[in-house]
């Protein structure tokens, strides 16, 4: 039989973990009662949209960069980038070639990486570094020294991305990657910078009667089962299981001041919150 470590050193939960099955529902439940340490409770994760901001070039990226620089003395930021139109092109091509979801994720990651590099060129003179996932152990140092770091927004799943229920587009892209960064570090805020004021009852670019939704619970949003969303569905599903992140905020990067307002904790744009989390209100 396998040799267990010296049990005298283990907690009661530890003794169950080394001897039992990790798929045992009772053991999983028992891990719920452990403490939750927020690793970087003062950091803000800010996702800069690919199609919505980066693909617009200087007219959109310039003001966002200025706003990031102005906030460096006040707010520490992990800046993640989206992918955008080149990802859409490479996804269509790869789908046409019959390539699997994991390969599409590898391809899409390269586009988010390109955008992260471009954003870093625009912020380099302020001492802002770009970190690959492998370099994340240095992240606290860069944040303390310079106030921000840049990373590409895709989760590093590579060929290990899981299939979606329907279709062939990787379901966990840059919205999800940035959300999971915020969750694992126990971040102060998760802010998505896109090209709309947030969430609407319909697509405001197509429907003039669409009305703005300033605040909505993730439970209600999922129950509405909308055909289109401002954020990847995977983020909404993960919000239900998140231990640290109770709300996410969407602001319009084309309107100067919205990102700053969100960093300052103002209810600008749209906030999606978890009504089931402690302190949540339906």
């Amino acid at each position, binding site marked *: 039989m396998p040799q267990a470590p010296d049990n005298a050193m283990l907690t009661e939960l530890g003794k169950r973990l080394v001897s039992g099955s990790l798929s045992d529902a009772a053991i999983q439940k028992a891990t719920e009662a452990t403490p939750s340490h927020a690793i970087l409770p003062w950091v803000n994760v800010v996702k800069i949209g690919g*199609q919505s901001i980066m693909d*617009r070039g200087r007219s959109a990226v310039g003001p966002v960069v200025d706003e990031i620089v102005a906030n460096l003395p006040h707010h520490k930021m992990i800046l993640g980038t989206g992918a955008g139109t080149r990802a859409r092109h490479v996804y269509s*091509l790869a789908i046409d070639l*019959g390539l699997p979801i994991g390969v599409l994720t590898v391809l899409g990651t390269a586009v988010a990486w390109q955008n992260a590099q471009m954003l870093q060129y625009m912020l380099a003179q302020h001492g802002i570094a770009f970190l690959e996932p492998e370099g994340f152990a240095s992240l606290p140092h860069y944040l303390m020294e310079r106030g921000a770091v840049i990373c590409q927004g895709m989760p590093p799943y*590579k060929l*290990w991305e899981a299939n979606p229920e329907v279709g062939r587009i990787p379901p966990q892209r840059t919205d999800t990657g940035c959300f999971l960064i915020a969750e*694992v570090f126990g971040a102060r805020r998760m802010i998505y910078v896109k090209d709309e004021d947030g969430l609407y009852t319909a697509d405001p670019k197509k429907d003039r009667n669409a009305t703005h939704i300033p605040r909505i619970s993730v439970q209600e949003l999922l129950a509405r089962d909308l055909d*289109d969303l401002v954020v990847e569905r995977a983020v909404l599903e993960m919000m239900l299981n998140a231990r640290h992140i109770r709300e996410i905020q969407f602001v319009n990067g084309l309107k100067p001041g919205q990102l700053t307002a969100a960093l300052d904790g103002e209810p600008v744009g749209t906030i999606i919150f978890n009504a089931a989390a402690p302190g949540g209100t339906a």
Partner: protein
Amino acid sequence: MNDTSPGAQHVVSRLMRESLMDKALIAGTESTVRAILPTLNVVQIGGLSIMDRGHSAVLPLLDEIVANQGEHTQVVGVGPGVRARHILSVGLDLGLPTGALATLAAKSSAQNAYMVSCLLANHGFVYLEAPFIVQLLPAMLAAARGAVFNGIPPYDLWEHPPAVGKIPPHGSDAGSYLVGEVFGARSIILVKDVDGLYDADPKTNPGAKFIPEIGAAELIRMQLPTLPIEPVVLELLTRAKLAKSIRIVNGLVPGNLTRALAGEPVGTLIHA
């Protein structure tokens, strides 16, 4: 949201300007997937069930892998075992989040995979980290006789928080399955220390009934309190495009892996 306003510089494509969150658009991408390595077999060596037992369990299994490699190309995933359980225990006690626990546990299976690659080195197997699986696996299989990889997928800090508790849901079973799925492997065989799936834990319940074959969706519905594989694998199977089944075999019984590679109905087959 759909972007039709001026300003963005687009590359022309079928998905240009479209919202990738749109249900109709997502459904419209449904089409055939090509198998990249259709002759590949993914063999997953259990951590607690095989590796932690040491040479008496590991060496006969590796001999069987080597004996079959000429006929059936295998890549070998390896699970973490008891050291991952220990670091989960310490990490949970410190209050670390699931993503941190996943990153820590993955080092334990990397150790096991590295040891397996050393034991198979003489037979031309190489150890490949995730970036090299992405870039080099086909080349390595053409040049070397086989490859060993870390069964735990490279989700690291980006591991999903589970619905209940904090244990990382994607372990080495999930990672090995996903390698099989993305390459369109011929078979995925999980080598453990049980004969397969029972309707109860045979170690504590002598009346447990053996299940030779079952659908993943049905198994999810049965809501068994404990399973010999990670529950997330069942969900992955329900969404399979290419790898439509996994087989669980008892690696402590000589010949089981060989029979599974030959396509014989040994152990338990869980299909999509």
